[in-house]
């Protein structure tokens, strides 16, 4: 048994049965650590199932503020007999295994290198409660109480969380606190505490917040001025529209009339969902839809229409593991290629890639500006890990001076001054034409929107030079987009190393951690975080400036690398693949191992490299 005491640096995994109410208890556990000012990152690893299958909830506590997933479990809280054998094997040597000791553990389950903490939770519940539902729900609360003593979590913090959770249902507060105390009492009477892994209050989080990306993006849609949301339920994007609805109901209802300044329609499928969003944007209302991979596949047809007829529209793709139904509740970054070139014919689409909830909020609002400025679909590519898991994030920020950028929309007065309105004329030489909203002017500005080939005046045309002109102008517009989309983040003022790391979205947190760990070993990299497609010049310059660039992503086929090669025409040999695609969020250890196996020996020569 190690005598090393680990303060604020360990991983707790909860093994539960899906549908038993464990998620909210586990969330309370994570939040209590957040409230103690310590960086914490919870990740719900759940099955595509309503009730009965195993589910896990990882909580990583990191004083240094590393928020990516980490392999290795220091404390397993196992409440699921189905997965127990596997769960015991997962615990790191020297770790702890907390279980319901109402039934004796089979001798096969005994490992000598871990410490067992048995608490007869079922027994305690059966003695304390007669209602079968309470017997189940309070099991979860009892182990949270036990953990508070074992890990030195301040009991007052938990009490406060319980009071907040049951605000409006005050009757439930006392029984929950009682259940917490049952756990505390059992540990106090039977074990020495705290354990060698424990928490200590810090003030590391300042004004930071803890929320998931879907909710943040939903709030972003409210702030960004979306009035029409059309969607079809699909994991993991559903909670994004629910987030929009919750905050729209709160802040977008007219106080006098009780009428809504927004409309939400649950469509019959993803095709209709995007069709509605396109129809609303065509008619001048900011509108969006949210989906995941299978929905994006269906939306290809409409994306082509919006691209070619130049209608703004916003689409959020909360990516999950494909192909086909894939692993619907597991994460991936595997829709990049489809998003970039969705629909038949020659198309190119704009997308933004947030890496934190604050970026989800900000970029969601930005997508509406960009879509209207560019008159084209703009996508927000997040993923299940960012969308559905809580992350510590900078607070959501809004510039009070901010005005919506509605793009080139002609008013009736402006139309009066025109001899002839041409919907697809490139008057400003930036590839972006002027549009009109239906109903603006009695005799000027009407035009026929169509997905068939058209000339500058929106008239049907199969004339080859006309078609080529329009298609070339769309490319010019895509060039213009490069200067409008969010710029990448460079981690250094000037490049110092031969090798660089390139990453994006939820890969960012683990990549940053890997960089730090490498640095401790004397290995340094330059790095860039990409935030949008199309790539602007900085991305090309970064690749140009390095002999090797490790492209870190969460898919099998190195889709970001393909985009870089295709769009920037860089030498593919320069771009090394670091690919995690097993459905779990990428870890720093994984990144380091993949890089070390590919790093030229010369790179390690002058450094004291240590294998990870």
């Amino acid at each position, binding site marked *: 048994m190690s005598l090393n005491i680990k303060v604020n640096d360990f991983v707790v995994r909860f093994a539960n049965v899906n549908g038993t109410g464990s998620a909210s208890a586990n969330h309370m556990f994570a939040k209590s650590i957040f409230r103690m000012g310590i960086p914490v990152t919870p990740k719900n690893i759940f099955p595509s199932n309503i009730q009965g299958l195993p589910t896990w909830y990882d909580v990583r506590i990191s004083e240094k503020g590393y928020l990516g997933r980490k392999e290795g479990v220091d404390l397993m809280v196992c409440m699921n007999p189905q997965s127990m054998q596997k769960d015991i094997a997962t615990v790191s040597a020297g770790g702890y295994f907390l279980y319901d000791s109402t039934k004796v553990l089979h001798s096969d389950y005994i490992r000598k290198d871990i410490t067992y903490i048995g608490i007869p939770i079922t027994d305690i519940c059966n003695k304390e409660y007669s209602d079968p539902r309470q017997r189940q729900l309070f099991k979860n609360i009892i182990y949270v109480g036990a953990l508070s003593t074992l890990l030195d979590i301040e009991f007052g913090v938990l009490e406060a969380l319980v009071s907040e959770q049951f605000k409006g249902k005050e009757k439930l507060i006392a029984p929950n606190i009682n259940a917490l105390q049952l756990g505390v009492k059992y540990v106090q009477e039977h074990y020495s505490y705290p354990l060698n892994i424990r928490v200590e209050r810090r003030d590391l989080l300042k004004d930071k917040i803890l929320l998931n990306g879907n909710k943040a993006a939903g709030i972003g849609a409210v*702030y960004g001025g979306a009035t*029409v949301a059309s969607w079809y339920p699909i994991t993991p994007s559903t909670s994004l529209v629910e987030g929009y609805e919750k905050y729209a109901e709160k802040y977008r209802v007219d106080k006098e009339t009780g009428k809504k*300044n927004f409309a939400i*329609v649950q469509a*019959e499928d993803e095709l*209709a969902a995007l069709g509605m969003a396109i129809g609303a944007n065509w008619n001048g*209302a900011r509108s969006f839809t949210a989906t995941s991979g299978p929905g994006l596949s269906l939306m290809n047809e409409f994306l082509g229409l919006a691209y070619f007829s130049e209608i703004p529209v916003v689409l959020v793709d909360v990516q999950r593991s494909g192909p086909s139904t894939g692993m619907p509740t597991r994460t991936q970054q595997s829709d990049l290629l489809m998003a970039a070139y969705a629909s038949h014919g020659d198309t190119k689409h704009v997308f933004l890639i947030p890496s934190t909830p604050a970026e989800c909020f900000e970029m969601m609002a930005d997508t509406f500006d960009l879509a209207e400025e560019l008159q084209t679909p703009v996508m927000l590519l997040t993923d299940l890990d960012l969308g559905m898991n809580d992350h510590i994030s900078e607070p*959501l920020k809004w510039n009070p001076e901010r005005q919506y950028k509605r793009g080139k929309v002609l008013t009736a007065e402006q139309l009066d001054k025109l001899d002839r309105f041409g919907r697809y004329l490139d008057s400003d030489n930036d590839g972006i034409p002027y549009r009109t909203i*239906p109903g603006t002017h009695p005799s000027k500005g009407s035009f026929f929107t169509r997905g068939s080939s058209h000339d500058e005046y929106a008239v049907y045309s199969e004339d080859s030079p006309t078609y080529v002109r329009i298609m070339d102008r769309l490319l010019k517009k895509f060039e213009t987009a490069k200067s409008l989309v969010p710029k990448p983040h460079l981690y250094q003022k000037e490049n110092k190393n031969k090798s660089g790391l390139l990453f994006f979205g939820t890969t960012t947190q683990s990549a940053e951690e890997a960089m730090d760990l490498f640095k401790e070993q004397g290995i340094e990299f330059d790095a860039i975080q990409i935030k949008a497609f199309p790539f602007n010049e900085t991305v090309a310059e970064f690749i140009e400036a390095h002999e090797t660039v490790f492209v870190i992503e969460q898919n099998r086929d190195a889709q970001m690398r393909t985009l870089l090669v295709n769009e920037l025409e860089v030498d593919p040999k320069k771009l090394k693949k670091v690919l995690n695609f097993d459905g779990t969020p990428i870890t720093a250890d994984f990144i380091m191992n993949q890089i070390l196996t590919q790093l030229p020996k010369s790179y390690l020569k002058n450094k004291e490299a240590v294998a990870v």
Partner: protein
Amino acid sequence: MTYIKSKFAHPNLPKNKLGYTRKEYEGSLTTLCAGCGHDSIGAAIVEACWEMSIEPHKVAKLSGIGCSSKTPAYFLNNSHGFNSVHGRMPSVATGANLANKDLIYLGVSGDGDSASIGMGQFVHVIRRNLNMTYIVMNNGCYGLTKGQDSATADAGSKSKAGSVNMFEGIDLCGLAIELGATFVAQSFSGDKHQLVPLIQAAISHPGFALINVLSPCVTFNNNVGSTKSYDYVREHVEATGTLDYVPPMTEITTTYTDDETKMVEMHDGSWLRLHKLSQTWNPDDKISAINALQHSHVKNEILTGLLYMNNESKELHSLLNTTDIPLNKLNESVLCPGVEILEKINSEFR
């Protein structure tokens, strides 16, 4: 055939209340086959809108893909048009309508567009009672791809090449009534006197209004043995009654006392004067409408005219309780909750 549309207009052409002649309601030159039923429907739309003195720019005309869906280019040139993708017009119309409740939404579709590839969207736009007029130009075949049977072709109907359709035809009107449509009518492209007031009534109706118009395809489905040919339709048409549209502010001078004639007031102040031919049918009774349709099928008749109407239904905006101001007219001051509220939201997550 000419490829130039004449701009000449006689100075004494009649004008409507807005001072517009029919010219202001016309579209570009049609590219459909000479004699196509669809062009007659387009002409009826022009006539209906002109007579109602609708401001053309307050109309949004939307369609899917197919011969029918080309027609919005051939009427109402001063209206915004949207030729979307195959079978998906209802969703685009839904979004457009949600953005601005103040425009008139006129959807044009075909039998392939509505009864096959777009059946899902057709069904759901009815369920939502979207405030729009939905005209199906129904010819029982796919014209643009050279005459394949569509899902509305009757079983036993013979194609131009002589093959007999094996499958039951879908009755869009019966289906629409079943789904809760609040205005359902059927007509024939060759009967302008019936069609024009039906279009006017549909536009006045506050909710989803379907007009299924039999519109023979002169090129691929006008042969002997087809149940969608001009001759067949003319011989088998049976009207529920006659309908006159009386615009708002018109003095109603005649009072009808007989059982067969009824005056129905619409929400926009217009009136429908309905004269029934059938004793057993009642336009505000769903069951009698379905019965009348089923009886006509048995007798190999094509029942036309108004089939069913429910003027008291709630359309989508009222179901969703959206604001009276069109959503596309709202700006930052209403839409963005602001910095102070964001601080409050942030504190929820601490």
